[in-house]
């Protein structure tokens, strides 16, 4: 499994042709305590850069964008029931949704771990 990152601080971990999408530790720290998550509908076709999920922290509203084109195949209901999971464990239990990739080249073009670490300093 390989993980790639966007400039908007989403991550996507690829397993076969299914990517698990969430927001990075850096992103959750910047947003502060999350109080509300609205997930995309299962089956929704997303284009890279589309607003996929709505995220609200005590401070501000934000979106998790689709890192690649694809179809939403699963959502993590646990973060809807308890948004604080995204703060406490963003890159494991706090994942957002799974997407079936339709264009793997988009995934390969995203930042790898080293490039993302450089971005966030």
């Amino acid at each position, binding site marked *: 499994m390989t993980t790639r990152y966007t400039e908007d601080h989403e991550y996507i971990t690829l397993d076969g042709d299914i990517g698990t999408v969430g927001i990075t530790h850096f992103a959750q720290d910047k947003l*502060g*305590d999350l*109080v*509300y998550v*609205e997930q995309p509908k299962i089956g929704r076709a997303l284009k890279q850069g589309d607003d996929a999920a*709505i995220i*609200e922290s*005590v*401070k501000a*509203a934000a979106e998790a964008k689709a890192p690649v084109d694809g179809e939403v195949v699963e959502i993590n209901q646990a973060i809807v029931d308890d948004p*604080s999971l995204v703060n406490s464990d963003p890159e494991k239990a706090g994942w957002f949704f799974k997407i079936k990739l339709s264009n793997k080249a988009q995934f390969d073009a995203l930042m790898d771990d080293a490039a993302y670490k450089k971005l966030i300093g």
Partner: protein
Amino acid sequence: MSESAENLSRTPLFDLHVSLGARMVPFAGYEMPVQYPLGVMKEHLHTRAHAGLFDVSHMGQVELHGIEAASALESLVPVDIVGLPVGKQRYALFTNEQGGIFDDLMAFNTGSYLHLVVNAACKAHDIAHLKSKIGSRCEVKVRDDLALLALQGPGAETALESIAHDSAIPQIFMAGGRMTLAGIDCLVTRSGYTGEDGFEISVPNAQCEALAKALLAAPNVQPIGLGARDSLRLEAGLCLYGHDLDTSTTPVEAALTWAMQKVRRTGGARAGGFLGADVILAQLDDPSKVKRKRVGLKPEGRAPIREGVELQSSDGVKIGIVTSGGFGPTVNAPVIMGYVEAAYAAAGTKINAMLRGTPTPVTVVDMPFAPHGYKRA
């Protein structure tokens, strides 16, 4: 407001905030702590359960000296200042000729002068206004040499006691006087802006850090940032100037008529005589002249609804706007304040907030959202 880092001011607690791990942000021309490592949610809940210490030194402190100070100030606010007893504080509003509000403030009668606390973003304008309008009737003394701390929460009294030694603590909400705290001479009022019992402490800049450290060493006191200050005041139904109040809003529209004592209203001994009195008293005397009102709103769902969101009637007509909105950690639900046309202002009225373009049901509710913890007699 866009502010570049180089022209921002710092309070005397800047170094302490940084050493406590605060995230500093520009606010009203100052570098202020928005949150500490605890985070907004836990800081908010800690204040409601125990006690929180807030640096509010960016606010302006101004003294009015002279025999005419109280009556002079009454020409600028629709509030009973002449009748304000020694050792008591009152919430007040600076009005303009149109009856709008250009700042809210606190006025405390020390017995020898009036001590005012005004908003940071408005202080230059407020001071100029005081000097030009009443500077000939009283001395307007700007106290840039004073810092201001707020200690808020049900544990505030215990924390204050721990450094007060023999100094007498003001016993009820809005009472105050001089105290010696950790050996430092301070002006203390039993007040604040979180809805909780607590104190605001005016202290010389040079001794502010020592006092803050003494208070942080008291049991169960945590430093609290501006993020939680905002959610605390919103849950308490308290207005934030520039958001819930502005120059186009009258005190009647803002549902602040409780701040206007009878003596300044029609038929009172000192009725009117403040800027915009014709507009404001006419609205008080004839409710049909009040076109819109500030209300509390509660959505059915859990999505926060924020400032600027349009409010519509069920048939899709714009009837108002959200002026403050966010998530209330204590009520564990979104909390919203806004203005609606008078016909929609009664508690229980169902309207829609246009959240990301979708009509989202909200109900007009009484405020505060979280009960006040003020210590009354």
